């Protein structure tokens, strides 16, 4: 019944320790994670963790149309250009979400095959349908409701 697979048999570990062995070399950071807050309350959550020593993550707010991202220092930059070389865009929102802006960013990410995740903070306890509808089509995965700490944990986990 058992068909031995001789050729790769030398790769079969004997002890648990050996089985767990992995070549040890440094892992690359994620590439240009962009975190965009789509309203003021979300921005506050973002500012709460933006000062951590991240590898390459960059944090933004956004104008009403989504065409401009605004860095934490207040500098406006063209959105499409800013996400161009990113591998993931993380969208933060609460009930005050700017629907047009999230659609513009979401579309730009989709066109460039950039991964998207959304964190929807519902601090006032009530999730509104229009908020959900605004972000739902644009975040491949959506945490709803998200806790503030989820943002930090997510960025740590993806080596942002």
């Amino acid at each position: 019944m058992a068909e031995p697979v001789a050729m790769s048999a030398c790769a079969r570990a004997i002890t648990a320790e050996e089985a767990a062995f992995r070549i040890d070399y440094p892992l690359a950071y994620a590439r240009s994670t962009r975190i965009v807050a789509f309203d003021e309350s979300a921005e506050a959550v973002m500012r709460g963790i933006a000062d951590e020593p991240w590898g390459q993550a960059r944090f933004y707010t956004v104008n009403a149309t989504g065409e401009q991202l605004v860095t934490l220092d207040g500098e406006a930059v063209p959105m499409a250009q800013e996400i161009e070389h990113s591998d993931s865009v993380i969208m933060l929102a609460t009930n005050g979400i700017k629907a047009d802006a999230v659609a513009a960013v979401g579309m730009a990410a989709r066109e460039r095959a950039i991964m998207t995740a959304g964190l929807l903070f519902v601090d006032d306890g009530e999730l509104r349908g229009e908020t959900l509808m605004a972000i739902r089509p644009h975040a491949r995965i959506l945490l709803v409701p998200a806790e503030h700490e989820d943002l930090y944990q997510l960025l740590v986990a993806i080596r942002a």
Partner: protein
Amino acid sequence: MLRPDINDLLTQTGPGTPMGDLFRRYWQPVLHTDELPEDGCPPVRAKILSERLIAVRTPEGEYGLMDEFCAHRGVSLFFGRVEEQGIRCPYHGWKYDANGQAIDVPSELNNSEFCANVKLRSYPLVKVGDILWTYMGDPEKQPPLPTWEFATVPSGQTYTSKRIQESNWLQALEGGIDSSHVTWLHGGGPKGTGLEADPLFAGSRGNKYNAGDVKPFFEVVENEGGLLIGARRNAEEGHYYWRVTPWVLPNFTMVPPRGDHPMHGHFWVPIDDENCWAWSFDYHPTRDLTEAEREAMIAGAGVHSKNIPGTYRPVANSENDYLINREKQKTGEWFSGVEGIAIQDSSLQESMGPIVDRTKERLVATDAGIIKARQKLRRAVEALRDKAEEPVGNVPEHQRIRSVAIVLPADQPFVEGIGDAFQAREGVGQTTV
């Protein structure tokens, strides 16, 4: 990526470890009732949460679960002789009752006084459904008996199997939560025939939505006992097809149903830090399983596995590279080349090593569900350890849960759309398409 200390925290479940303490606040499945089939039957070894135990059923019908090793000189009581009221060690004849209390030490003159001081560590072993459950924590904190629907419907409506998995429990659990692997690992064949090929999934309308939209979106929603993970795909105009997987802390997950097929799910129970039991159940809330369904389950279809007769080790296992079929892998008939959902999962989860080094992961944003689940586990462990905070998931309110498959209008939060379809309700069928 996960810090090494947190990886240790979540993966170690032996006595005295923080995660071990959390697990010891829940009833966990230990044996199928068939393993102790009649009064006075032979004892069975059971290792759980790194404790080696022996399960007995006395001639009087009392179940017991105790330290595997005789208090005298450490002989395994697997070799013991089941006698009235208990089990006798064959080496020098010490005898224990079902609670591990020594009741006869023939070599001692003052027998009863000596006995009073000898007791093996023991735990309750209780039959609920076709499963024998144990609770290994502080007796004062013992929660109500388990009320999971699969274990409380009449016997004819439910079937449970188990298989040993050579990996830490968390690897197995994460597979149950990680819905994004389903279209890959469990995919295959031209457009969804993977599902259609299995008698326990075939013929559901949901299969068409699955095949028609292979890049689902996910929503992860907080739930009282854990999380709900919704995978949505396009359905008819203006609608989404939702498949919702509940996770209840620490180690219970359910797979969303397909058509009127029985619904299924898993318990991922640590044996020790490098092995776990994958318990797999299938049940229908309102009708008996058909003969054909039961036969398919016994044969290893669906979430079950084909095991080596007389054991719980799958026929396809690490020794034979899970009988991977490179031809079928190449043609795509089985995307992974491995047959059957259970072994598709175990082959890859075991391939990660007994305890995967999570510092070496390269997680991506769409792994947010797994990241969230780890965070919840960690928080539950730390809250219990540091603040003696009561865990969730060990009370009936959190256990009367179901997975759901449903088509909803595009603008509806799935939790709202599903309503009480998440609730296990006696006599009410599952919500499914």
